[in-house]
Every structure is written in structure tokens, then in C-alpha cells.
């Protein structure tokens, strides 16, 4: 399972734009109460936190598995 640091990194790779990342991060805060830009230590590997963030990103159309595959393909 990915932790929130890895999720943040994947999202950043997908958006490739700090401005866009800031907007999506703010949306995540309001949907989950959690920040992926200023991570709280207790959230980083929390299954509940990871599930909430992953679900919210999926609702916004960010498929982390697909992003990861593309990233590996580029690497």
C-alpha cells in the first residue's frame, strides 16, 4: 500500500504544476481534513487516512495506479 508521501509524489508527477497541485491539495483538505502538502506524522501511514485521500483523488479523476504505471513507463 502506498503511504501519503508516495501519493503526494505521484500526484505531483501527474499534475506537473505547483499551482495545480496546490488547488487539488486544498480540495483534499476540505474533503478529508488532511493535508498532503504538510503531512501530519500520524497520517502518513494511517490506512484510514490513505483510504480517504485515495478515494477523494479517485472522485476527482486521479487514478493512482495508472499514474504509477505511466511514471514507471517513463522511468
Amino acid at each position: 500500500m502506498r503511504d501519503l508521501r508516495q501519493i503526494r509524489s505521484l500526484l505531483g508527477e501527474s499534475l506537473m504544476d505547483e499551482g495545480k497541485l496546490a488547488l487539488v491539495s486544498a480540495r483534499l483538505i476540505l474533503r478529508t481534513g488532511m493535508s498532503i502538502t504538510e503531512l501530519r506524522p500520524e497520517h502518513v501511514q494511517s490506512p484510514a487516512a490513505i483510504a480517504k485521500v485515495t478515494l477523494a483523488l479517485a472522485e476527482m479523476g486521479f487514478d493512482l495506479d495508472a499514474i504509477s504505471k505511466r511514471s514507471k513507463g517513463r522511468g
Partner: protein
Amino acid sequence: MARDIASAYTRALDASAAADDLAAQLEAADPAAISFFASHHHDGAALGRRLRQAFPRAAVIGCTTAGELTQEAWLSGAVSALALGHGKIRSAAAALARFDQGVASGIARAGEQLSTALALDLRQADPRRYVGVVLVEGLGMQEEAANDALGNLAPTVSFVGGSAGDDGEFKRTRVFCNGEESDNGAALLLLDVAVPFVVAKTCSFEPASADYAVTRVDVERRIVYEIDGRPALEVYASLVGVPKGALDDSVFMAHPFGLMIDGKRWIRSPQRVLPDGGLKFYCQILEGMRVHVMRSTGLVADTRRELSQVRARLGGSMSGGLAFNCILRRKEIDAMQTQDAFIESFGGLQMAGFHTYGESWLGHINQTLTGLWFA
């Protein structure tokens, strides 16, 4: 030469007279988009149609209010409006999202209209070039769903705005789009902006307590039942230092809850105590969220500071914009009798706005001033 941006207001009650008065004041801006904010006594749909007749190339949205604003006037029972000219806006499109068959589907249909009109893939839109305005019906508690649906459709585009009001009667609010109206929907405006712009929000609060975990909620009904595993009313009363029986509007207004994340304050305002021991809010708080009880820091000074920072972000040149000010901030301003000082904060700008039943920017928030400002 066109002025590119113009604000206006009118006290005319008749829709045609009001529209004609506004049109005469807005004409110099060569409008590409017009946002108007009308008292609930006005026929906003007719007003919008008349403005479209006057400016056929302009996208026109509006809503009813809990009071109207310009840089010159603190109004009630009137209409305020802002025209953005073709010198500032390359193109603009407006769409009415009707929620009759669900919020998400209504927003999705409206989004398709905006996408088609601007020949734009909303998911790929550049947030430095495109920005949206959203005016949501204010009584159906559907703002979170509407903002989430916008985020699902266009996650990297800011939609900023507020919830329609009816001057504190809490009976019926309406939104308007190109001459149509809805009391169960949202008016959307998408702008392709040719000049620098900033979306900003400010609230005049700072944490007055440590943060506490919200542990039991009814999300849909915006009710908090427990904080740190204890009855919410007990915890809140203790933190604000008043007996449970003395919790009233004045306490709620002075001490909302705040999420403090990434250095930003996201305010959640209590509305009332419920007989079942719940504390009802004006927007949702999710289980597990950590909240502070907040205290006021000075509304007018904070507003001035925020506008000064916006001006700096725009490179020192700021022409005006739209302001969405919470009705609870209006009540605080009324109580402090600082209306003139608040309005003077916008001196030198072309500004129109209204007092809202909630503010929107990426989500639904309270006791905040959200705004869209242009160089």
C-alpha cells in the same frame, strides 16, 4: 476607450428600470461577463434578460442576496453588479446547473455546456488562465455537493463565489443565468482571463484553543455530536467559557470552529443548539477532522490587509473584482457599526458583491470573504 471593468448599483425595484440603470453604468466596460446581486424582492430572471438584451455578447449570472455591496455603497433591497470587459476577458460562458435530478448530474451537464462554449477540456484547463464563479442556491444545504462536483469535473480550476440569500428570511433563494432562474441549482460562469487575477479568501479569526478531534457527526445535516468522545455542547461551552444554556448567536459568531491546515484557516460556523444535544453548523464538518475554537481578530483590518496582499500578488496593479461576504460578517459589521470602514477598504477599485449564506472556493466555507480580483 473601454474601461474593461465597471461596478454599478441601483435602488430601482422594477426589473426593467433596474437593468436599464445598471446597463447605463456598465456600458463603458464593453461587458463580456456580468455578475449581478439582487435583493430577493427583485425579479432577477427578468433583470438578467434585460441585461442580455443590452449586452448580447455578455454572459450574465446573478443571485438573490442578504445585502449588496459595491466600493461605494453598503446596500439592502438593491442590486449591485460588476461588468468585466473584453479587454480583461477573452471569452466567457455561463450555465445554469439544475439540481432537480441530483447535484452531480446538474453540475456535469452545466460543465459540458461551459466546455463546449469555450472549446475547452475542463480537466486540462490552465488555472492561471481560467477561473470560474459559482453562485449556489442558499437554503438546500447542497453547497458541499456542488463544490465537490465542480472539483470532480475541473479539479485544477478555481470556482469562487457564494450562496444566495434572502435578507435573513430563510424562505427562498434564487440563482440566475442568462435570464433563467432556479431555486434549486447553481449559476456557473467560466472566464478565460486575459490579465493577471487572484482568487483570495480572508477571515478574521485565529485559534483560541488547542485542536480537538470531531468524533461523531451527522455529515449530511451538518451536525456535530461529539468532540474528543465527549458531548459537543459540553466541550464547546467549556472552551468558550460560557454555560451550555447561554450558547447563542453572539457566542457562535465570535467563536466559530476553524480547521488550520497548511497555514490557512477554514471556518465552520455554529448555527444553533439542537434539542438532541447536537451542534448544527452552516457547513459540514467531517468525522476525524481536527478543529480549533477561534477568536476574532478585527474584521476590517484583516480585510484591508488581505486586499493589500492581493494587490501585491497582482504586481501592484489591481482594478477590481467580485466580493462574497458572509452574512455573519455582515452581522458583525452591523454590530460594530463599521460599514463605512469596511466599504472604504475597497476604495479605488471597481467592486461588486453581496452578503452570502456561505462562501465557496474549492469547497463550502463560513464567516469568510472570498473574492476574485483582477489586475
